[in-house]
Structure formats: C-alpha cells, structure tokens
C-alpha cells in the first residue's frame, strides 16, 4: 500500500482480485435471482383470483332437450347442453369427417373420453372457447343451418372452425383440436359442479 499508483502491477494481488471478482459476480447473480422470484411470482394469479376460480355449482333440473346454458367459470364461458336422442345419434354420422373422433388428445378429463365426451350422455359440458384463437363459437343445433351436410354443432365465426355436437373438430379447420371439456361431476341428479 506504499505505492502512489493504485494500478501498480507489482502491488496488486492478482489471485485475491480474481477471487473477489468471481465471488462478486456469483453473489450478484444469486441476488438477481432472488429479486427475480418475487417479480415473476407477482404476475401469477393472486389469492382472490384463485378464490374466484373455485368450482361452481349449476342447477340443471329445468333444462329442456336442445337447450344451451352458458355459465362463467374462471371468467370463461362454459356451455351446458342437454342433448336429445336425435342429437346424440348425429355423433355417429360425423365420425368420418372428424380430426380426432376418439378424443385421443387430452382435451377432456379421462371420464369424458368417450363418444359423447361427457359423464352423462345427454349432458354436454364444454368450454366455450375455440381452440384456434380463443373466440367463442356459436351453438347451431339445427341440421343444415351452417351448410348442407351440417348435422348440428358449433360454428366459430372468427375463422370458420366447425365442431360437432360433442365439440369434436372437423378435419381441415383452423382450430387444431377438439373443444376442451372442463373437469366436472354431478353432486346429485340436478346439480352440476364445474371445476373439479
């Protein structure tokens, strides 16, 4: 420490300097990571959002055949539709034109991986959000209402995706995959619980 020039090479302990540099960089990185954790987590859904995202109960006792009910779960539209025998029969006719008729891609809970994509054949529960870019398709149950071979289903007006009455997407549509079935179960014959 006697030299007047602090950069005098003779005086500098290079090993010590390298050690100090490395530890400072290391500690700096740890600190940065520590700061990143709260900043990143801050953006995830907060407690009240999570609370608002809890399962909801829907009374379906008064639903008629063909009727559509739309409820909000986690701010998303969920459709509940009571399908008649004729509507269920249409699911056989569409099979050949579907992209994934057996619902092999995990767009539904295991208990809804069947032809009707539902727990109870008549009650269909679907997330009303197009798998293409998130528009909400329209329910068009009347045969021939969208085109001549239409058996009833859902039509997305944004980019023209078509789905059948189980929410299965037709081939060559912008939407890559079937509509999603949210987790749900029946509390009793008339009460549907959406979200678990």
């Amino acid at each position, binding site marked *: 420490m006697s030299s007047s020039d602090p950069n005098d090479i003779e005086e500098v302990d290079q090993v010590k300097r390298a050690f100090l540099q490395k530890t400072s960089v290391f500690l700096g990185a740890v600190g940065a990571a520590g700061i990143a954790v709260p900043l*990143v987590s801050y*953006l*995830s*859904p*907060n407690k009240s*959002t999570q609370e608002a*995202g809890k399962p909801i109960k829907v009374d379906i006792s008064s639903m008629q055949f063909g009727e559509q009910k*739309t409820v*909000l779960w*986690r*701010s*998303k*539209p969920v459709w509940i539709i009571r399908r008649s025998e004729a509507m269920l029969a249409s699911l056989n006719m569409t099979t050949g034109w579907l992209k994934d008729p057996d619902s092999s891609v995990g767009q539904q809970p295991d208990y809804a991986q069947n032809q009707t994509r539902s727990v109870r054949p008549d009650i269909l529960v679907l997330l*009303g959000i197009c798998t*293409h*870019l*998130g*528009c*909400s*398709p329209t329910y068009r149950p009347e045969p021939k209402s969208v085109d001549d071979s239409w058996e009833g289903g859902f039509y997305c*007006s*944004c*980019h*023209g995706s078509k789905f059948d009455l189980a929410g299965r997407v037709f081939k*060559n549509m*912008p939407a*890559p995959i079937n509509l999603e079935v949210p987790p749900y179960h029946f509390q009793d014959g008339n009460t549907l619980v959406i979200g678990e």
Partner: protein
Amino acid sequence: MLMLILSVAFVLFVLLNVLPLFKGLGRWIDARLPVFSFLVEHLSHYPAPKNLNLWYVFGALAIVACAIQFVSGIWLVMYYTPTAEKAFSSVQLIMRDVPYGWLVRYVHSTGVSCWFIVIYFHIFRGLMYGSYKAPRELLWISGVTLLFLMMAEAYTGYVLPWGQMSFWASKVIISLLSSIPVVGNDLVVWLQGDYEVSGVTLHRFFAFHVVGFSFLILLMILLHIIMLHTVGSNNPDGVDIMKHKDRKGWPLDAVPYYPYFVLKYIPIILVYLFVFFAIVFYAPTFYGLFLEAENFEPANPLVTPAHIKPAWYLSPYYAILRSIPDKSLGALAMLLSIVLWMFLPWLDLSPVRSMRYRGWMSRCALATVVSAFILLGYLGLQTATGWYLLLSRVATFLYFSFFVLFPLITYYDRDLQVPERIPGV
C-alpha cells in the same frame, strides 16, 4: 418529447449566447453540465450529407409523433381508470364530460396510426437507400427493435378502452402463446394473471403501456440517435461521405444540420401537424380504420364479435398468421415476418447501397416485398375465406421468398458504379 426538450434547451442556449449578460452563465453551466455543447454538436454541427431529401424527414417526424403520444397519454391517464368495471366508462367520461377530453383522446388515437404511417415510410427509406448496410447494421437492428416495441405499446394500449375489440383482440393474440409446446398454457395464465383475460390482465397491460414499454421506447430512440450520430447518415446516393474530408476533418459532401436541414424540416413538420389535426378534427375514426365501431361496445367475454380484425398497422402480420393452416406454424411465421428483417444487413450481398445504382432485379425484389406487405395489410382486415384466403397465401409466400431470394438477387444483379462523391446538386 425528446425533440421538444431539445429544442427548448436549444432556444435557451441561443438566448444565452445572444444576450452577453447571460453568456457567462451559459459557459458556467456548460463547464459543469455539458448540455449546451451536446446540443450544438447533435442538432447544429452534425455533418449531414448535402443531398438528403424529403425521405429523411421521417426520422424527425417519428420523434414529433412520439412526443404527441407522450403528452396526450399523460393527460389521458389523469382520468382513465384501469379496471374491468370502470375502464370503458372512464373513456366515455373523457369523451363527454372532461373539458377537451375528446381532443386529447382523439389526438392519442390518431397519433398511433400516424406514428405507424411515419415509421413505415421511414423503414421504406432505409430499404430504398440501403441504410441498413455496413456500418449501420446495429442502427438498423435498433430500428427493428423499435418497431417491435411500438407494436407492444400499441397492442397493450389497444386493450385499455376495454371495448369488444380490445377484449377479443387481446385474447386472440395472447392465446397465440398457448401454442408454445409444454409451457404454453401456464405461460398464458402467468401473463394474464388470471385463467382468462380479465381486469387483472387489463391492469398489468396498463402498467406496461404507461411505464414499461414507453420507457423502453424512449431509451431505444436515444440509442438509435447515438448510433446514427456515431456512424453518420447514409444518403439517397449511398455514397460514403466520410472518405473525403477537408483538413479540419469535415466531410466535403456534408453541410451542418443547422441551419440547412433544421430550417427545411420545420415547415414540413408544420404540414404534418396540419394533416394530423385535420384528421383529428374531421375524421378521427378514419372510416373505422383508426377507431373501430365494435370497440364502442363494452367488452363482453361471452359474445365474440362476428368479425375480429386487428388495428390496420398490425394487420399484415395478422394476415400472415391466418394464412397458415397450422396454429403454431402460423404464430412462428408471424414472429419471423419481423425478426427476419434484423438479418437484412447480411442478406444483402450487393456492394452498392442505394437502389439508384442497383439493377432491375433488386428493384423488383423490393417492389414485390412492399406490395406483398401492403396486400397483406388489406387482407388482414377482411374475412379469411375463399379468394381472400388464397390471395393471402400467395402474398405470404411472396413476402417470405424475398428473404430467401434477396442474397441471390443481390449477388447476381448488375449494379452500376457508385460515384466517389455525391453527384452535383
């Protein structure tokens, strides 16, 4: 903003010099904070090639446009409320009850579109005169980054009025991220802060719009200008003016920025402002292009508008997205349609900068990619069916083929000899 501050300080500096009384004060400050000598160096003594033409005003106009957005934006925030319940009605309040609120809002909404028009002309100038070529590669990349930032700023701002288009357009774009393998869905929830686009999303978009991106834009503009003034301006002939300098080191083909260009640009800026305010006063929605009718309806998560379309300045990229039948590939193509421009300095193999000295092939390539871009912009606003879809596929193909063919074209094209000095003006 920058321009405003700079020019106010510049006037101050002149005053300080004109009045001998203040001259000493000016020097006293400058010795401690070299702001005046900085301004003189960059606004007055900057050696500008003597043949700069009208195309070179767009950089200055971009700064003016940016300043307009900052001022009107700060005033809007005084009444705007970023919550799902109040956002739409607070905008109505600004439009109806706040004194001159309509003016401030229309200036801000018209300002975005005009800023993008200016920037697209600015970019076209760069393409035409080869301004991206060495030594201006980083300057060019900072420009493409600015375009990205402007798009992020425009997108987050578009969501704020919380009308039908705000809501659904934000959903469509956010859901693009869900096509990222493995992490896509979690990433979307994390960004939204909710399981769906909601008030939480709106509020954080507000934060990014007002503070985050706008700050980055200012910073990037500053870097842009620093880089420009380090390497110097290109010019319509693409002649390197730094090759021939006088004994004091002043380029022989340059004139000082002040008074030659400053005085020339001021009337042009006034013309710009005249056109700008004509739109603000007489056609603020610009026939549904600057403000869409659907967005005068409050956001409704249950009902999608029949036809979702993006703001016009983003529609070319949207058309590219839609023209590709696969969701992930479409999103990738949309991203690439901008990122690829960053590589342009290395895709151009011609020894010549300006189109003035290039052969017909390079000119055709430029004309094709620009036409494809404009066509895509038109198609992005139409429904993607039948002929429109077919056309947008053709245009997308042409657009991307530019990046593939440009190295070949610029390699084989017959360019003319570029003169040593700027030809007589």
